[in-house]
């Protein structure tokens, strides 16, 4: 396979939206059989550029060539017919249909009998089976997609892209919802695809991944091209400084806070009311401590934290907070006690899309401490609301045109900052962060880390669920690891290492699988 042959060439692409120039003369050349990483901070224009390549946007200027032929895509379908496929950051499979129907949706194989097109189930099954086998994906084509976990959904999307005979596959943050083991499988598939001459455009914020798997790296900043380099010439330091346009000395702020001996949160033998969720979990959290929660996807970490916060039912066990036994029935109770929870699913349980930055920022505080805004009267003090929102926009350096902008028009990282502001505004004693930096660029990440450090110094306590090992190890004073709903261990100080955490995170998996196998 001729690796030097450019399969996708984008030249001088510009694209404007009302009020903002999202892309300014950006060029990108992707060669067959290579992995081309596309990097940049949130809002740098990566997604916009890819949407131009995939026919979702029409560039104002510039040309796109596929295999040397100039093209102008009408829509995504047109792009796919030209061999360009895109796997979006947020997947939307049809959950109530099975794997093979999802793969062939819109082009179901059929047999024509008596002038009527009948679905050819057998061909569909065999084709799907062959496709999945080729990719090394162990999935039954008849599995209902709703029962698949995040990583299998991702694999399903990749299989679908391959089934279109794609020459270029765009992957937008494919590993953001995958655990390390699952990511390994993805890399294997990527390797297999590139060996066959497929080009991969890989968007990610995870630099170790990019250095490992990519051949070339293109970096963007503020809608402009910074440059394109062979991955072999790159280092993490170089990439970061080129992305943010300044030197970044460290990935994490220096640890200056000191956890006190005072126990803030004491969880005793907590068991979920839901079957197959967490069982008999106990842990303590001190004032001024950052507790990391590690584990694989499905370890029930989110469920545990949301149960403590009153969002999910508990069957047994006790939660003690500030030395008193609590009886938290809903989020309101938890907030009144001084807890805050930044949830994992930004879209589903975080933002209220059509409401403004101001409305979204004060949402929780205005309900919990209405008097701050009404002074005991009936009407809200609009100035106080705006001031509060402005304070956190400034503090977190959120990029937004105005405070009146609906939050749905902000980039993911900026949405996350607004949501963080929502919880900080409550001035909580305990802040629970569930994957706080998922899908966020390095600059914003560092700002969030600094904020966590500052809060800990002020004697606030933080629980951080994270699937990113460096973050977990870099920020936490102590790490609790969960596996399959059980607490599998705690590590701190000298004991902290990748291997130790990974081992704890998979403690029960093998034994459970063994038990299942024995039953079958």
């Amino acid at each position, binding site marked *: 396979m001729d690796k030097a042959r450019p399969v996708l060439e984008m030249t001088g692409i510009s694209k404007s939206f*009302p009020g903002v120039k999202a892309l300014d003369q950006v060029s990108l050349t992707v060669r067959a059989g290579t992995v081309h990483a596309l990097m940049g901070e949130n809002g740098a224009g990566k997604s916009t550029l890819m949407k131009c390549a995939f026919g979702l946007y029409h560039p104002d200027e510039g040309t796109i060539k596929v295999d040397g032929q100039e093209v102008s895509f009408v829509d995504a379908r047109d792009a796919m017919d030209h061999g360009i496929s895109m796997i979006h950051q947020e997947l939307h499979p049809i959950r109530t249909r099975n794997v093979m129907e999802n793969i062939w949706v819109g082009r179901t194989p059929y047999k024509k009998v008596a002038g009527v097109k009948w679905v050819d189930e057998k061909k569909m099954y065999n084709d799907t089976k062959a496709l999945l086998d080729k990719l090394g994906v162990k999935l039954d084509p008849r599995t209902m997609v709703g029962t698949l976990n995040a990583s299998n959904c991702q694999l399903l999307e990749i299989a679908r892209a391959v089934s279109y005979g794609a020459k270029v596959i765009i992957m937008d943050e494919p590993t953001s919802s995958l655990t390390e083991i699952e990511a390994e499988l993805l890399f294997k598939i990527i390797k297999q695809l590139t060996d066959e001459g497929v080009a991969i455009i890989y968007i990610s914020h995870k630099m170790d991944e990019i250095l490992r798997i990519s051949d070339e790296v293109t970096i963007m900043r503020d809608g402009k091209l910074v440059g394109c380099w062979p991955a072999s010439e790159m280092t993490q330091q170089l990439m970061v400084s080129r992305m943010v346009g300044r030197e970044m000395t460290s990935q994490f702020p220096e640890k200056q806070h000191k956890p006190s001996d005072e126990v803030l949160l004491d969880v005793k033998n907590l068991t979920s009311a839901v079957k197959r969720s967490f069982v008999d979990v106990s842990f303590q959290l001190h004032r001024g401590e950052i507790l990391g929660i590690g584990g694989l996807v499905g370890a029930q970490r989110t469920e545990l934290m949301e149960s403590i916060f009153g969002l999910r039912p508990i069957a047994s066990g006790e939660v003690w907070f500030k030395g008193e036994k609590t009886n938290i029935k*809903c989020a309101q109770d938890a907030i009144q006690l001084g807890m805050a929870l930044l949830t994992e699913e930004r879209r589903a349980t*975080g933002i*209220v*899309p059509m*409401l403004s930055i101001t409305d979204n920022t004060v*949402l*929780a505080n205005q309900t919990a401490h209405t008097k701050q805004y009404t002074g005991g009267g009936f009407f*809200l003090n609009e100035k106080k609301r705006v001031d509060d929102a402005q304070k956190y926009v400034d503090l977190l350096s959120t990029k937004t045109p105005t405070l009146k902008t609906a939050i749905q*028009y902000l980039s993911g990282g900026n949405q996350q900052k607004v949501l963080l502001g929502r919880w900080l505004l409550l001035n909580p004693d305990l802040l629970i962060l569930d994957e706080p930096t998922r899908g966020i660029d390095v600059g914003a990440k560092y700002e969030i880390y600094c904020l966590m450090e500052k809060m800990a110094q002020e004697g606030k306590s933080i629980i951080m669920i994270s699937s990113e090992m460096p973050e977990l190890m870099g920020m936490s004073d102590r790490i609790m690891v969960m596996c399959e709903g059980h607490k599998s261990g705690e590590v701190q100080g000298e004991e902290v290492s990748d291997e130790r955490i990974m081992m704890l995170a998979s403690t029960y998996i093998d034994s459970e699988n063994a038990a299942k196998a024995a039953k079958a």
Partner: protein
Amino acid sequence: MLKEKFNLRKFLANNALYVIMVLMIVVIACISPKFLSVRVLRDILTQSSTRIIVAMGCMFVILSGQADLSGGRMVGLAAVISGSLAQQSTYYLKFWPTLPELPVIVPVVVSILVGLFVGCANGFIVSKLKVPAFLATLGVQMILYGANCLYFNKAPNNSQPLGGFLPSFSNLGTGAIAGIPILIIIAVIVMILVHILLTKTCLGKEIFAVGGNAEAARVSGINVFKITMITYGIAGACYGLAGCLEATRTGSASSTYGLSYELDAIASCIVGGCSASGGVGTVPGVFFGVIIFNVINYGLTFIGLSSYWQFVVKGVIIVAAIAIDVRKYNGKN
């Protein structure tokens, strides 16, 4: 900010509702110039007033992301109940023959309270029993109609239209203060109150939040059950008030009152810019949504067109307004 040239297409898309209304008024006025008069304006507003109150109630439910089909039948029930409590002692077919003549406030308050109760029942069924709002309120609609017919058929009334209202009661619907019909004044007061509630109070902000993303609202400590109860409760109270006023306006009441008002109200809300999935909507928008339908009703009759045409034109307007509206949001991406 990039300077944008005046774009006719964009302007039309953003102001579709107003453009359609102006066009209609121009067309009607060309055919019959007398249409442009204070009297016609007053008639249209008076006719719209009860519809406005129903639409305001309905708007709360739509903003919170739910649906309510019980409005029309609630109007009918409130009309009959308030009418039955507001008859003169001398009227030969008095519904409650032994009932003394009550102050006008009694039927009004009773209608509002009955509406409030039914609304809260709706809220409870939707948010506690978890019945989908469309079906829950469809059921309640049937119950209301049945209950209304049973009440209305009570001896000695036996389903005769109610009449013989106290002058103080009828005066609400026909009287005027300083030349402005009382009904219009009441509708304006309701609109102002709703506007203030929605834009200036914590409750209003919480309603928008629940409609915009109920899960996010719940996580942020908003009591979604409470908000749902309140929105349906307010809606019910509005329907109750509107039903009572409908009786005063027409000087009569029967169990068929309010038929399909809920659909007109929903259409007015959506045409007036409310998002059908919740979280978006304004009082002025809904007001114009109501007015445009009444301009059609009144205007087409005014130029002597068959009333059957009104349905056709209304249907076309609903579809067209929403088709244009959808494009408005598409353009933003």
